[in-house]
């Protein structure tokens, strides 16, 4: 097949049309610009604008998270310059927590470097008797589960190309544990849409929730969603909430009882791992 060249100077006004035509058949959804622009210039501007103030409240959806992940993922910002920016601009627990979260990125890359394509399969056995189906259900893909929160998470993913980390965790737990879908279907869904979608952080975060890369599965309850979203969905929600209940009862419902972290068998070059 003859090489197809694409000009390197398409302005944003022409980008979607020209690139969309040139790459026809090689992408999903409409040809449109991303919610946040890519590139070194945009990345530096986003970095400069980020103060990191009150980052310590990052678990709240209203928290001051950086949204720099898509620039880090594509090398538009280096992890060192983001860390240096944080050290120059942030203080105290905001700084230490930001740097700790940034370190997750490096950790996932090192696991990928160490384990290679194995990260695309279960790194460990699930810590409960898991029976997962392979396909992403249509109602999830199309944001019509009927759950206002879950549908909003999918909408953020598909329309914005980005989700808050807490939304990623909730969505992953919902898909794997409540809907009994294999984490790889979620991984592919995120890879399709996330502007920061990669192999390492994406696959390994899914595995962390699934308990194939952690000592126990991650799950939440309605109170957790309500608290960290400031009730944005729960306050007006009228549906039968599958997340309602104490942790113990949800654990029984999802996993057949408490999942006790057992000592991990050695894998490769054994390290004694800690639990989160």
């Amino acid at each position, binding site marked *: 097949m003859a*090489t*197809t*060249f*694409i000009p*390197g100077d398409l302005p944003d006004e022409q*980008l*979607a049309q020209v690139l969309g035509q*040139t*790459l026809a*058949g*090689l*992408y999903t*959804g*409409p040809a449109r*610009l*991303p919610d*946040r*622009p*890519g*590139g*070194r*210039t945009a990345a530096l501007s986003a970095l400069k604008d980020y103060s990191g103030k009150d980052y310590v409240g990052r678990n709240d959806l209203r928290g001051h998270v950086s949204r720099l992940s*898509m620039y880090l*993922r*594509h*090398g*538009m*910002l*280096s*992890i060192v*310059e983001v*860390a240096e920016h944080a*050290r120059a601009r942030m203080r105290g627990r905001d700084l230490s927590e930001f*740097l*700790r979260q*940034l*370190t997750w990125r*490096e*950790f996932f*890359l*090192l696991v*990928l470097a*160490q384990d*290679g394509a194995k990260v695309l399969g279960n790194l460990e056995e699930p810590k409960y008797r898991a029976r997962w189906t392979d396909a992403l259900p249509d109602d999830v893909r199309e944001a019509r589960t009927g759950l206002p929160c879950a549908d909003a998470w999918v909408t953020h993913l*598909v329309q914005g*190309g980005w989700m808050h980390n807490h939304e990623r965790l909730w969505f992953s737990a919902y898909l794997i544990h409540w809907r009994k879908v294999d984490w790889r279907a979620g991984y592919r869904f995120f*890879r*399709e*849409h*996330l502007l920061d979608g*990669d*192999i*390492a952080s994406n696959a390994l975060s899914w595995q962390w929730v699934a308990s194939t890369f952690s*000592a126990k599965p991650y799950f939440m309850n309605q109170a957790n969603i309500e608290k960290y979203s400031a009730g944005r969905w729960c306050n007006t929600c009228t549906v039968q909430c599958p997340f309602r209940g104490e942790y113990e009862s949800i654990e029984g419902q999802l996993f057949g009882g408490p999942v006790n972290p057992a000592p991990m068998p050695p894998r490769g*070059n*054994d*390290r004694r*791992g800690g*639990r*989160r």
Partner: protein
Amino acid sequence: MSAPARQNAPVGRAVVWIHGDSLSPTDPALEAVPDAPALFVFDRPFLAKTEVAFPRLAFMYQGVRDIAAARSVEIVVGGIGEELAAFAQRHAATELHVTRNFTPQWEETLQDFERRNPNVEVLVYEPDRLTSYDGPVKRFFGFWKKVEAEVLGGNALYAPQRGQGRR
């Protein structure tokens, strides 16, 4: 596998491969050979079998575009192996410069390139690292305990170095 950086060595006809993790003019391989032409490939075989929404591709294009504003960049659609080989040939390259990428596909691509182009030397640059830790990893908590002081201290003694190695 890293070798001492070559300093003041004569540069042959160098070309650069920029991939999805190196979309900045500050990419180590790009900075190492500022006058060399660079190639970015939209991977047709991969995209044909993998669902990727358009905004992701546009985001990457915008990254390449910022590089192309400052130097010669060719953007093509095709198989990465074939396109890299054709690109090297177009420029009569003797050296291919690239920044390390941790995906399995990257390693396979370079091995394939070396088989097809035995006369082109491949030079690999290390991406920036937050820590100098290079041992095995299993759980984040254990990793964090090893690197916490370095990450929080930001001590220059541990600053990652941009390396270059011959393969």
